[in-house]
């Protein structure tokens, strides 16, 4: 066995100093000096020992490991007799390691310094490219990471809120932008009071995640993670993340999602159209069978986006059966609306009370029409007079007080003034008075119904020939002399009107020549004396104004579907509390009213007021619903039943009961059965069409613009 290389005898060993920075250059040769290099790596070698002076002699102190006392011994001057030639010390391993560590530290500090330098920070510290959309709008870090947000002392919540506001500057998320689903807290509480029940157990992972409690703050960035690359889908979120806030939790759409309760029929249809009665009763009726639709597509068509199914419109879907009804062709009796009337006034009582009334027809009957009352209330004086008159019937003032008689006289002159203005000024009078009335929101121009001043002129000449002079005098403050009561001849009947064969009893023939000529002026165009007049309302079969002399009334006949006059007055009076408005609305909304508008069009109470749903449901790009469905993507999946593969009738449902006096669109019983989840889960499974939450649901819901225009970003010229 070979001897050991290292001596185990303690005093034969060299004293190693591995912690030192420097090692003797001769250590590898086995003849390192005992002093070793200095702190800075300088050689300190002089000799193999430092001789010690004992008494007056120098004694060698060389270590035993170096051979103990040397033979020459110390020199007389006390220096070592075995001098050691100087060496070039080398760095120890430990020293090299320290130097490398320091170098790495310095290099790292330099690299980190670049991060703190404003010029290189955006390049080096940017955690990743923005999505394409944001890369265009946010070219500087400060666009999103504002100085205010980085202000010291800002709480995390404040920073997140500040950042959210930056998001909302461009992305309109409605009034409750930071609330879950953009829904107001009160509404959210209502929705979560009775959450729909899941049909399976809660997934354990959601139980555990929910146990952490709701997120303390739902900042935009909680879901939308930027700096993930240009093509990153910012809207991507896991189904489990969708559910963590929900009270109803389930495994998947096909496993536990609550059954649809009223989807997609939660909201009342804007048109009252009973599919069941139409399909089962009317379309099978021999009278209508030839014009009845043979497929759903005849009445419905997908919107350009493919999502909503639209009603093709009245002409395509309804007109074949309902046009005559709307135009009033089948209507018994008067086909128009009484817009203006010369109401009955007890002129004798007024004259006796000292109120000059001028001429007034004896045959005047009835009171003010609601339209007249509305227009009169547009004038302060008339409004005051009507208020003073109260419930007193102006046609019988025998028991009226003096004040009531005075008020009746003022009302009479207000009616005369209105009539005169309508004759002399025409439509602007209606516009002006409507604008001054509480129904200012009424579509003013449409509200005139293209009023015919000529029809009014003819009526005035027939009913009150001196009206214009009288009103002018009254407005000048002159007393108007009493005139003989006007007797109006009927001129709008179907009877033959001939000069020769005129009824000898007709009072008109006894009138003075000038009166007679003016009263019959309306008949002037009727040249051949042998011709007959049709009924006045029949002569405006496609809509217009006509008068009835026997009732002293001026009528408007609607001009078919979507008549502007009816739309304006129904829309303007819906939901109003003024008695006149309520009377107008009640008159126009009756099922037998001309036009029969509200027989089909529903009326909704909304937070912004009461509205008549003139249009069927339309795509609203600015409204994001919670659930979305693309009809066009599913057409190819329809079976033999067509649309009824999914939309099945709910025979017996009280569909009509949802309309009528009900103004709440949320109260609805559809005549279609709610959709079945099973009809979706046939395809919507993980391995087939997918079943992620976001396939059918939007998180941000409500009314919002897609992107807010930033005025500051526009070029100066078009700011």
């Amino acid at each position, binding site marked *: 066995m070979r001897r050991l290389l*290292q001596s185990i005898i303690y005093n034969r060993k060299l004293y190693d100093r591995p912690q030192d920075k420097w090692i003797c250059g001769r250590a590898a040769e086995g003849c390192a000096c005992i002093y070793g290099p200095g702190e800075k790596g300088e050689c300190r070698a002089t000799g193999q020992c430092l001789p010690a002076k004992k008494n007056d002699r120098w004694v060698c102190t060389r270590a035993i490991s170096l051979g103990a006392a040397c033979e020459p011994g110390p020199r007389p001057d006390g220096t070592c007799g075995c001098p050691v030639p100087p060496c070039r010390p080398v760095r120890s391993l430990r020293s090299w390691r320290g130097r490398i560590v320091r170098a790495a530290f310095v290099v790292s500090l330099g690299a980190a310094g670049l991060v703190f330098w404003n010029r290189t920070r955006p390049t080096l510290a940017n*955690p990743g490219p923005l999505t394409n959309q944001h890369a265009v709008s946010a070219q500087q870090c400060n666009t999103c990471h504002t100085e205010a947000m980085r202000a010291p002392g800002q709480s995390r919540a404040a920073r997140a809120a500040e950042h959210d506001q930056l998001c909302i500057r461009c992305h309109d998320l409605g009034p409750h932008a930071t609330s879950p689903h953009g829904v107001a807290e009160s509404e959210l509480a209502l929705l979560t009071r009775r959450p729909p029940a899941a049909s399976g157990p809660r997934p354990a992972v959601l139980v*555990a*995640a929910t146990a*952490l409690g709701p997120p303390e703050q739902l900042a935009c960035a909680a879901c939308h993670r930027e700096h993930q*690359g240009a093509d990153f889908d910012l809207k991507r979120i896991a189904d*489990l993340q969708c559910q963590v806030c929900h009270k109803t939790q389930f495994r998947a759409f096909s496993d536990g999602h609550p059954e649809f309760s009223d989807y997609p029929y939660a909201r009342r249809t804007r048109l009252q159209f009973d599919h069941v009665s139409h399909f089962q009763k009317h379309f099978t009726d021999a009278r209508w069978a030839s014009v009845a639709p043979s497929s759903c597509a005849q009445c419905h068509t997908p919107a350009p986006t493919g999502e909503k199914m639209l009603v093709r419109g009245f002409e395509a879907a309804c007109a074949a059966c309902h046009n005559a009804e709307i135009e009033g062709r089948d209507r018994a009796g008067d086909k128009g609306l009484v817009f203006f009337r010369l109401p009955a006034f007890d002129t004798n009582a007024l004259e006796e009370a000292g109120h000059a009334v001028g001429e007034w027809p004896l045959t005047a009957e009835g009171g003010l029409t609601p339209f007249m009352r509305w227009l009169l209330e547009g004038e302060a004086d008339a409004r005051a007079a009507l208020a003073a008159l109260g419930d007193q019937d102006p046609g019988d003032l025998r028991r009226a007080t003096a004040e009531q008689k005075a008020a009746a006289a003022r009302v009479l002159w207000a009616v005369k003034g209105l009539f005169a203005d309508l004759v002399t000024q025409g439509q602007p009078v209606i516009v002006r008075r409507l604008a001054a009335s509480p129904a200012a929101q009424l579509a003013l121009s449409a509200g005139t119904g293209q009023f015919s001043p000529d029809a009014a002129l003819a009526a005035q000449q027939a009913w009150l020939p001196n009206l214009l002079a009288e009103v002018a005098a009254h407005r000048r403050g002159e007393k108007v002399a009493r005139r003989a009561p006007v007797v109006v001849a009927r001129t709008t009947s179907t009877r033959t009107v001939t000069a020769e064969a005129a009824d000898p009893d007709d009072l008109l023939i006894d009138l003075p020549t000038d009166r007679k000529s003016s009263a019959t002026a309306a008949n002037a165009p009727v040249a051949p004396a042998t011709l007959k007049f049709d009924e006045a309302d029949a002569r405006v079969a496609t809509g217009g104004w006509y008068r009835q002399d026997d009732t002293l009334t001026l009528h408007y006949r609607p001009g078919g579907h979507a008549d502007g006059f009816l739309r304006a007055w129904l829309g303007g009076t819906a939901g109003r509390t003024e008695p006149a408005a309520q009377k107008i609305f009640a008159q126009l909304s009756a099922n037998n009213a001309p036009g029969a508008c509200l027989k089909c069009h529903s009326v909704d109470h909304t937070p912004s007021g009461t509205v008549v749903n003139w249009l069927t449901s339309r795509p609203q790009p600015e409204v994001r619903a919670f659930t979305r469905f693309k009809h066009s993507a599913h057409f190819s999946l329809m079976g033999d039943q067509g649309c009824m593969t999914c939309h099945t009738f709910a025979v017996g449902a009280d569909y009509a009961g949802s309309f009528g006096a009900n103004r709440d669109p949320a109260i609805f019983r559809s005549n279609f059965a709610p959709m079945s989840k099973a009809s979706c889960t046939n395809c919507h499974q993980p391995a087939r069409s997918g079943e992620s939450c976001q396939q059918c649901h939007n998180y941000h819901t409500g009314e919002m613009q897609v992107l807010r225009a930033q005025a500051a970003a526009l070029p100066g010229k078009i700011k």
Partner: protein
Amino acid sequence: MNTLRARRWLLSVVTLAAVLALTAAWWLGGIALRPVAKYSGELLVLLLLLLALFNVRKKLPFLPLGSATAWLQFHIYAGWLSVALFLLHAGPQWPRSALGFALWLVFLSVAASGAFGLWLSRWLPPRLTRSGESLVYERIPRLRHQLEDEAGNLVRQAETEAASSTLADFHRQVLAPYFARTPTLFSPLAEDDAAHHRAGHELASLRRYLSEREMLIADQLAELLEAKRNLDAQYAGQRLLKLWLFVHLPLTYGLLVLVAAHVWLVLHYSHRF
């Protein structure tokens, strides 16, 4: 099961449990829309500081900060935990920023060098013990020099006594380069003894040309060859045990600096922290 192995099992299980718990917390936190990146980042910074304190502890042996063994065990298992936490924190995607990439690269390098060092410190020492006499690393150059001298002296002795230059020529051509050589850096991993075997084989082949006196000296040279083999093994092994720290430590300091920059950026720019 001995104490060491039991401890290793226990700490491994505890670490694994911690990793699983952190992963579950990360997953659940993500589902619950919590800022898990913030939480994991804070925990990771804390862990890194504690891991770095191990070096400080070694520099302050006089302070009662617990035994070095306990610190080493903590360093090892907390290191594994930090790797798992880092992978959760950084996510599966490739870093997109220069700083992020540098952090990612440096962290993984630190972790990899640490893991390599740990494996080396477990794998190499038994082999060095089996190799032969254990030597102090700092003395090895001197011992190599001593062996060179001894071999030279033997050859000169053979040349004088046997009046033959056979061994002298052999020494000049084969032995002198072999005794002067230092092993390559990773030779312990390859268990590379080729140079030793080649020199020994050539010495054995030379014997047929040697006289009896030279044969005796050749036997002594063979012993020196074996000593040199052990010397090389000890030198290469111990050098490797020291050199992995030349990667681990500098990168650790670099990592701490980059982490500090990262934390500043996050606190400065992020609106969720």
